[in-house]
């Protein structure tokens, strides 16, 4: 979807307001193709909002955003923006904090739904691909179960398989382990780590510091709707540049 070497995500003066309240201010950032970026920051700093703008789940209020060479900006007409967002979504997978599996569909049906409805590929091909992905997340034997029969960790792994089914170039994760019981966190993180090693471009909002440190190439640290600090994972965790980041890291350390 983009020329080799172009950034996967690029934002220019991106801003977002909710009924007058500005929650993202002038965000300028890039995510390179193949990069794994973790977005960190205190609660309410705008991490989820920013992530959701990457695939158009939140409308932008100002500025411009480019994902995989497809751009959306505040000056386009609504119709034009929707068209561009539609294109972006075809190449972007998303994993949510609450999994958001379709409860009325089996595990396998969850995974293949978009293949059948959006990509309209033949059922047999979709099922083959779906089963391959379920095997990859270790849940092939659950394919005919309904999601409510699965543990939270299993549900989230299904959700990852579902997002991968569209063969995305970019994966977005919004606190993928925050809704999980502590003993189920690792199985999900393991799947995400495995994915990182395949060279998938990923943006991960997380409160799991150790995981971020390990899996992310780069950290974007946000507070109060702005990017306060950016750097390699190594830099950020061992030598945070700003007072704000130091404070945040200390807090997280206390919590964990």
């Amino acid at each position, binding site marked *: 979807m983009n020329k080799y070497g172009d950034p996967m995500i690029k934002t220019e003066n991106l801003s977002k307001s909710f009924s007058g309240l500005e929650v993202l201010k002038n965000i300028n950032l890039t995510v390179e193709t193949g990069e794994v970026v973790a977005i960190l920051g205190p609660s309410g700093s705008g991490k989820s909002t920013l992530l959701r703008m990457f*695939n*158009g*789940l939140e409308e932008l209020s100002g500025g411009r955003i480019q994902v995989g060479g497809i751009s959306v900006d505040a000056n386009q007409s609504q119709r034009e923006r929707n068209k561009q967002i*539609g294109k972006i*979504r*075809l190449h*972007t*997978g*998303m994993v*949510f904090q*609450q999994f*958001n*599996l*379709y*409860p*009325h569909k089996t595990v396998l049906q969850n995974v293949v*739904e*978009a293949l059948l*409805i*959006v*990509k309209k590929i033949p059922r047999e091909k979709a099922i083959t691909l779906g089963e391959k992905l379920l095997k990859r997340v270790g849940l092939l034997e659950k394919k005919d179960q*309904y*999601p*409510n029969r699965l543990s939270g960790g299993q549900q989230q792994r299904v*959700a990852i398989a*579902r*997002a991968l089914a*569209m063969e995305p170039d970019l994966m977005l994760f919004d606190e993928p382990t925050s809704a999980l019981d502590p003993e189920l966190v690792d199985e999900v993180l393991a799947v995400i780590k495995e994915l990182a090693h395949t060279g998938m471009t990923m943006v991960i909002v997380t409160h799991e510091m150790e995981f971020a440190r390990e899996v992310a190439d780069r950290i974007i640290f946000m507070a109060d709707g702005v990017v306060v600090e950016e750097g390699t994972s190594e830099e950020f965790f061992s030598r945070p540049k700003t007072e704000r980041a130091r404070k945040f890291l200390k807090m997280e350390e206390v919590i964990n």
Partner: protein
Amino acid sequence: MDIIWSNLPFLLKGAYYTLLITIVSMFFGSIIAVVVAIARLKGNRSIRWLARAYVSIIRGTPTLVQIIIVYYGLADYGLNLQPLTAAYIALSISIGAYLSETLRGAIQAIPKGQYEAAYASGMTPIQTMKRIILPQAIRIAIPPAGNTFIGMLKETSLVSVITVTELLRSAQLLIAQYYVYMPFYLAIAVMYWILSTGFSFILERIERRLSIYE
């Protein structure tokens, strides 16, 4: 008792019409309900307003008056409907209004995350509604809709006023012939009861069948 047995075929024919009217109105009423519920939730201003007016008017007026308007009222404008057709139309429109409210509530009960997951995977709003939201909403709406359907079965007796020979009118016709009330009225009461119990039974089965994922 003998006059019941000897007239049973006639009464059963009435029961058949009661059942037929119920099922046909249920069917078209459900279609109306889906359209109106979505119109109220996702339509533009004037469509929302129209859908609201429909629901308000139907729920705010007696079903009997609606039936009479469709059959006798429209005849004033040269629209002479068959009694049975008028019954289908009036009752579908009526049940559609009640069901649309049930369905609207059910659609609103579906978490936002379901839409987001579908949109994120590239589905359009229409695909999302059809494949993800409605199937879940319908499952939620089935128990209350079941009550509406059973109420509907009983309300079909109203169309006896426009000379549809359903159960109630079959009894009335027999009464006019034999000059006894109780046996016939009791007989149809039993038949209504059997029909609604049968209905409840089927609805419960459907409910159980659809709730396997819970």
